[in-house]
């Protein structure tokens, strides 16, 4: 398995491949390969989604994906 951590200034649910798969700041365990990461509502974040290829991560060295508050938030 591979490891992912999603950063956002607020606590938010995380969608991986359109499915709820954990929360921001928690370690998320996902299989290797291509994934689309986004956040749950409200949609006050940017970018809207990020496509990543998960590989060669470790529980102590997860892939980090960050979202920012959108300017209209």
């Amino acid at each position, binding site marked *: *398995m591979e*490891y992912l*951590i999603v950063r956002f200034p607020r606590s938010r649910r995380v969608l*991986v*491949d*359109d*499915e*709820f*798969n*954990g*929360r921001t*700041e*928690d*370690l*998320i*365990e*996902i*299989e*290797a*390969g*291509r*994934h*689309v990461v986004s956040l749950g509502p409200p949609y006050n974040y940017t970018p809207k989604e990020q496509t990543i*290829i998960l*590989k060669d991560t470790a*529980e*102590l060295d*997860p892939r980090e994906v960050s979202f920012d508050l959108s300017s209209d938030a």
Partner: protein
Amino acid sequence: MICRLMPRWALVCLLFLALPGCAHYFVNVEKPAIQPVKEYRFNPEASGGNSNSLFICLAFSGGGTRAAALSYGVLEKLKDTRITWKGVEKSLLDEVDCISSISGGSFTAAYYGLFGERIFQDYRGRFLEADVQGSLFWSLFNPWNWVRLASPYFSRIDIAAEYYDEHIFEGKSFTALAETGRRPFVMLNATNLANGERFEFTQDQFDFLMSDLTSYPVARAVAASSAFPFLLSPITLKNYPHAHFQLPKDYELGLKDYPDNRRRYYWARNRAMYMDDAALPYVHLMDGGLADNIGLRPIEAAHQRSSGFIRKLFNQGEIEKFVLIVVNGHTLDKDTMSKDESPPGVGTVAPIIATVAMEHYSVETIEAVKDLRNARRKAQKNITACQKKLDQCPGSPQLPKFPTEIDPYVIEVDFEAISDPDRRNYFLSLPTSFALEKDQVQALINVGPQLLNESPEFLAFIESLRSQ
């Protein structure tokens, strides 16, 4: 007019000859434009005293009545095992969340899914101790069935499915399974003859046929799951046009994963192939054991895929203990052909090809699931150990953590674990059929609980519940 001119006997003959054209297998229906209220999918909301925090899945292997009786004995043991979880006393069976099954194991899984604990009152008489094989055999001598079997759209498997429907499953469809609203979520597995891939009777799989599973008889799914090659014919499903089909994201991305995750790529490809409904207007299904004779692969997929119901609960921090009980009723076929110099004939080779393939990857699949368990345990240990070291330095950062620490168990129920060689050989030599003697059935029902009681992993799991 015709009736007046024709003698009565000729009219009867004509009717007799015309009837075969009327006999047709049960056709799965097209998915309605409006999504039905009840669909047969895993419901992430636990109910009826079953929690997500203690998540138990069972895998029931194939192996005719032998496997069905072994899995029934395990269900009895789980019913009789009292636990206290989160301050509530209940039986371990109350906490079973999913069952994935193959062939003989599918009878027990489907019966428990439909009728719950009623299984402990009437299932033995209805199936385990019944001569189902004999009944199916004698039904072939019914002249009415000769007429129906003359139709190209009706075959032996349809007679078997009718028997199961009438005598075992009381005409229930997947609507009944969806409406119970309770767990376990039962996944009955067959094999697609076209590519040798497993085919599960869930709405997630039927979405790829643009078909609605709810009206489909459970008996036909069990018949497909147990359609042993050569003895029974395949079950056929219709693959409807995919005009408004939306490929789920996990599959869409999986199709691009050939370089990075070959397993995910083939998983996605094998489902996505149904989208070519012009090339594949029909799907022919046989015994689930041809693809996976222990029924673990659907659970493994639910555990691995980002859309998998187990994976999502893991990542949402809902599961604290994850228990997988693999009930493997396999046997060892005695090798007689290796003593003979002359090469075996087709009659010997054909059934061997069918059954050897069934067992080929069972051990590998179990070990792959154990690897997943070990990887999670190790990752959690590494984080805890490193954090402990870091905590010795003032102002050190907090390492990222999983939403919950999961305590995972993989428990095997397998005749190979019987220490007494004679007793072990007795079980490993039992035939694969739908007609066993009552004492054989009783021995199989008894051995499941004994194997659990002797399993170090099961004992460790029970001890972990006591020491909470």
